[in-house]
């Protein structure tokens, strides 16, 4: 028989206002096994924890029930307190009388009655609790970063800095991500390439970092500390080790009409290409969709001109298998497709562009060598209209309900830079709200308005109509003056919402990491564990977790790196002790459990048993690898004989709770 102590928390008035905590403590005194029961204002406070510790010693408690907030909040706190007082941490159960009782009921009588029942269920469970000891599993001291944008680069550099090996998997031919396409960065206006490319080079030169460019994660198996990842290296038809990046092939290639994704398709590249001058690795890649040699076997020009013989038309996708202790997701974002926003005439006019396209038009390495020219006729635009929140904060169903966060600032940047370089242009910005919370952000925005004379107009653009004279008629409403506006613009720039990269969803499935409805990865705790996924060993860096700007991305990237370093610094990890356990005496060896185990944690072996009639028999029985088992319990129901049970959530424990609740 356990000696159970019950501790009922007031949580200030959070619980005590709706639940008669003294009555709960009193009622639970009568439950079997309860030798001590009390209430206290804040059980999670140091004094509250000391109350538990002292009671364990004073009453020789073997089990503890805390009636308090959700176990998701403080189960660990109370387990640690119990452990420090000398009892097994898994002898603690929480009755959730705050989130699932006091906060949802107004009637003190029914809330108290329910709190007592929840307490009784916890007591009934603790009666059947057994001390559990966590196993240990070794940690592979190597990390994988998925995505080689600024988030992935920063994370990798920080992990490498701490002395651990780290691999970057990037699906594009070069690392660098979206930041490579950006001209200048707000609010300091320093050039993106100047601050990013040195970091890319650092990655390439760091001995601890290995870059898998033009590669994708194909499969992930294993668990925290011990992931096995299959990386698919897509065929780029160029031997990475031989290619010097001289670029002669890209000049000689006869296929000249491939839309250049680096410049948002506003100019063309060749079928063999290096995305941009500072690409890392600086290696050519053949685009199999356009290459004549790969399509119909007729050409081979690049191979003729390559002085080092790096071209290999027969190259195949290869799969590399590597082991990692931790995985960082840094898959980033893309601007949304604007097909559903045809009122802005994006598909009808070349002079309606996205902000990222605008970024390329002002970049010295862009299609216009940095001179702002209209894509349609190459003329200098005199009136430019910026439209914010295109697809962001959109409840109509066409766009995203969230705020993309970066658009207010980059639009202010674009407007300001345009006015600075071309003072003869009129610049209008249509906004719903201007959001500038960030260091020096509001000052930056105010400069755009006050110093540079950008016309900020609160209101949405209703329609953009291309006119026969080549201009664009922008119909909008000014909400502050309550006027309808018609602006004759030369260029319209749409601040398209950003969304997680499409690859994220399938990756999440491979990683068993959870996502929200917008396909952003979910963090383990929105406030307290923002860079970890709820799946152990998976960390989040950058926009894959939610919209953020560069400084935020970099800080989160470093934070994720710190978490990874903390994990890799350990030699062994303690496993979750609430794992499945097979009772060999009852096991039939039927393999049902093995079939439903998502982790492959169950294996079979033939064992010799003494039978009741004193003979021995060899039987096939299941056993569970405790380091691999994650404790879902699928096997326990698949097992008809009930030989498979789950420690910490055993059949008898759950049924004891059922009984206590239904009594």
């Amino acid at each position, binding site marked *: 028989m356990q000696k159970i102590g019950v501790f009922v928390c007031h949580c200030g008035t959070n619980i005590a206002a709706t639940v008669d905590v003294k009555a709960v403590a009193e009622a639970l005194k009568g439950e079997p096994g309860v030798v001590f029961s009390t209430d206290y204002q804040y059980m999670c406070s140091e004094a509250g924890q000391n109350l538990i510790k002292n009671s364990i010693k004073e009453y020789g408690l073997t089990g503890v029930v805390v009636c308090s907030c959700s176990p998701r909040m403080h189960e660990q706190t109370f387990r640690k307190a119990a452990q420090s007082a000398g009892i097994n941490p898994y002898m603690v159960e929480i009755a959730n009388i705050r*989130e699932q009782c006091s906060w949802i009921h107004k009637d003190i009588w029914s809330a108290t009655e329910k709190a007592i029942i929840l307490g009784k269920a916890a007591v009934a469970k603790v009666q059947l609790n057994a001390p559990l000891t966590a196993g240990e599993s070794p940690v592979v001291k190597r990390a994988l970063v998925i995505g080689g944008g600024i988030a992935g680069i920063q994370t990798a550099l920080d992990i490498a800095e701490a002395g651990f090996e780290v691999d970057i998997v990037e699906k594009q031919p070069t690392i660098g991500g979206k930041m490579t396409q950006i001209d200048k960065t707000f609010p300091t206006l320093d050039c993106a390439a100047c601050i990013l490319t040195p970091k890319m080079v650092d990655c390439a030169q760091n001995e601890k970092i290995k870059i898998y460019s033009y590669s994708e994660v194909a499969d992930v198996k294993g668990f925290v500390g011990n992931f096995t990842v299959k990386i698919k290296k897509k065929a780029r038809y160029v031997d990475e080790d031989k290619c010097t990046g001289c670029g002669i092939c890209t000049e000689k290639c006869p296929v000249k009409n491939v839309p250049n994704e680096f410049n948002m398709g506003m100019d063309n590249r060749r079928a063999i290409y290096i995305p941009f001058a500072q690409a890392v690795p600086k290696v050519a890649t053949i685009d199999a969709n356009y290459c004549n040699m790969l399509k119909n076997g007729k050409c081979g020009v690049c191979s003729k001109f390559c002085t080092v013989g790096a071209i290999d038309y027969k190259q195949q996708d290869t799969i590399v298998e590597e082991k990692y202790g931790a995985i960082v997701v840094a898959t980033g974002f893309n601007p949304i497709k604007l097909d559903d926003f045809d009122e802005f005439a994006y598909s009808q006019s070349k002079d309606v562009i996205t902000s990222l396209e605008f970024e390329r038009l002002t970049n010295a390495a862009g299609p216009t060598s940095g001179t702002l020219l209209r894509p349609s006729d190459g003329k200098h635009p005199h009136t430019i209209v910026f439209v914010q929140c295109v697809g962001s904060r959109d409840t109509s169903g066409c766009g995203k309900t969230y705020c993309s966060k970066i658009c207010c600032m980059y639009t202010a940047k674009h407007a300001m830079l345009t006015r600075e370089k071309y003072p003869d242009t009129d610049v209008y910005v249509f906004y719903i709200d201007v959001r500038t919370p960030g260091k020096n952000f509001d000052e930056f925005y105010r400069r755009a308005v006050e110093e540079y004379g950008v016309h900020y107009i609160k209101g949405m653009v209703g329609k953009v109509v291309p006119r026969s004279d080549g201009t664009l008629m922008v119909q909008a409403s000014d909400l502050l003056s309550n006027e309808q506006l018609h602006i004759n613009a030369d260029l319209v720039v749409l601040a398209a919402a950003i969304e997680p990269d499409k690859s994220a969803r399938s990756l999440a499935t491979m990683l068993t990491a959870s996502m929200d409805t917008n396909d952003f990865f979910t963090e383990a705790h929105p406030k307290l564990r923002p860079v970890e996924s709820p799946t152990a060993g998976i960390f989040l860096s950058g926009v894959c977790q939610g919209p953020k700007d560069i400084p935020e991305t970099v800080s989160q990237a470093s934070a994720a790196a710190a978490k990874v370093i903390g994990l890799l610094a350990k030699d062994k990890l303690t496993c979750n002790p609430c794992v499945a356990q097979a009772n060999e005496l009852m096991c039939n060896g039927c393999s049902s459990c093995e079939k439903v185990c998502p982790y492959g944690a169950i294996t079979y072996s033939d064992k010799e048993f003494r039978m009741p009639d004193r003979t021995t028999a060899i039987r096939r029985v299941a056993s569970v690898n405790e380091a691999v088992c994650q404790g879902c319990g699928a096997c326990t129901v698949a097992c008809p004989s009930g030989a498979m049970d789950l420690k910490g959530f055993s059949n008898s424990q759950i049924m004891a709770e059922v009984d206590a609740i*239904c009594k």
Partner: protein
Amino acid sequence: MQVKETNEFKPKIVAFCCNWCSYAGADLAGTNRLQYPADVKIIRVPCSCRVNPMFILRAFQRGADGVILCGCHPGDCHYTTGNYYTRRRMTLLFSMLDYLGIEKERTRVEWVSAAEGAKFAATMNDFVATVTKLGENKRLEDLRCKAK
């Protein structure tokens, strides 16, 4: 504490909630102060696939009037596949209970994510209303467990 006398039928509802989504969803309902009847008592399980049909029958035996099972949305299971097994098992079990003439509305499966506090509360309100309408569970009762 005074026991309030009432003749109104108050159903006993057992809700099995998976730790990762639905239990967190229930917590969120609490954090947002979304009301639902105190008749619902939650049992935390690691995954909806931990719920054995025996637990459900046991609850009815011991006097439950309704049993609801909540888990992550299919595709979002913390353990990747657990709720897919739950879905098959419970579909077949509920169909069998229906076949035996036991009111099928007393059992339910709902997928509630950690973000769906409102859905959790709405689901519980609806389920309690449904079971209240059905009245006391008579067809799967164990009279010996009903001794008052």
